[in-house]
């Protein structure tokens, strides 16, 4: 059979394919539940929104206090040596704090792209995968650097999509 004959046969079969197919289960209950959860989450965020400035300032104050405390303690005693997963967990906790503070800050600001949260989730998955790998090999510097890079990408993404300069373009 020549290429043209096959292409024509394929074309004919493609034209007969049904456009719609039905799933084997009803997907609506799951969708409805997800939307209801999202609404609850939005309500919680909006009530928290009134206090967001306080939260941001409280977070900043807490960070300053922690930095001060660490400074004082480091003068009084040798710095505790974080090793392996302790370091990974400390880095992750610090990153989460920074990320959440930014998300609260930009909460009511329109984002430049529609899928930035999806991109953020993907980077979350990447960071989880790296942490899982670090769990097996906690002193792997290449993985640790990768984790830091993914964290930085998340921060850059949040800032970039909410940047007023970009939105003016």
């Amino acid at each position: 059979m020549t290429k043209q004959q096959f292409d024509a046969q394929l074309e004919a079969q493609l034209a007969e394919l049904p456009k719609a197919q039905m799933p084997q289960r009803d997907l609506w209950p799951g969708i409805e539940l997800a939307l209801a959860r999202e609404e609850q989450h939005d309500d919680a965020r909006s009530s928290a929104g009134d206090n967001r400035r306080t939260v941001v300032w409280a977070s900043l104050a807490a960070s300053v206090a922690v930095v001060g405390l660490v400074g004082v303690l480091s003068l009084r005693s040798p710095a505790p040596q974080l090793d392996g997963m302790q370091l990974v967990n400390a880095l992750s906790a610090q990153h989460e704090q920074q990320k959440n503070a930014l998300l609260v800050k930009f909460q009511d600001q329109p984002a430049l792209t529609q899928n930035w949260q999806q991109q953020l989730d993907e980077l979350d998955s990447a960071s989880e995968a790296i942490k899982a790998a670090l769990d097996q090999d906690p002193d792997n510097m290449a993985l640790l650097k990768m984790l830091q890079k993914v964290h930085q990408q998340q921060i850059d993404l949040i800032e970039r999509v909410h940047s007023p300069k970009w939105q003016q373009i």
Partner: protein
Amino acid sequence: MTQGTVVAAADTFAEKSERDLIAAVQQGDKNAYHKLYHAYIGQVYGLCYRLAGDRGLAEDAAQEVFIQLWRKIGNFKGDSKFSTWLHSVTSNVCISYIRKQKGWFQRMFNIEDTDAANEVAEPSSAEVCLDDYIQRLPERARMVFVLHAIEGYRHEEIATMLGMAVGSSKAQFHRAKQLLKEWMGYD
């Protein structure tokens, strides 16, 4: 009144009622959204199934499409047909969902399950339809084939959607056609 006029009037009525339905959904009416779901679940699931190549994954992806559609529907301004716009949303959400499920490392290092390509195809049979063969294609070849041959996207668009070079999209399409030709017994 001629039959043509009746058909045109029915189309206009259908378009108007769809516009009303979408406007209601954009106002946050969940009952209207349920109706919209019923009207389009076949189209959305059909595309997800062809892209995913797996019923369970396609069902989850179709759910994700409708969850994200609820957030995005405010962006629909009526410049194009709703079904066309929904098709584009479905393709993008579904591809992104499948990628997420396949794992970041697999994507990062471009590891593809090539088992399907190495499989010995069953003898060609009248009962095995084209859709079954499409499901057997390797993931990237299947996605490119579905998007180009069935959904009508250009290779440039597919390259952007799948994050690959235009040449790779064309190569994957060629690969898909070769495999189909072989499996369907035309080789």
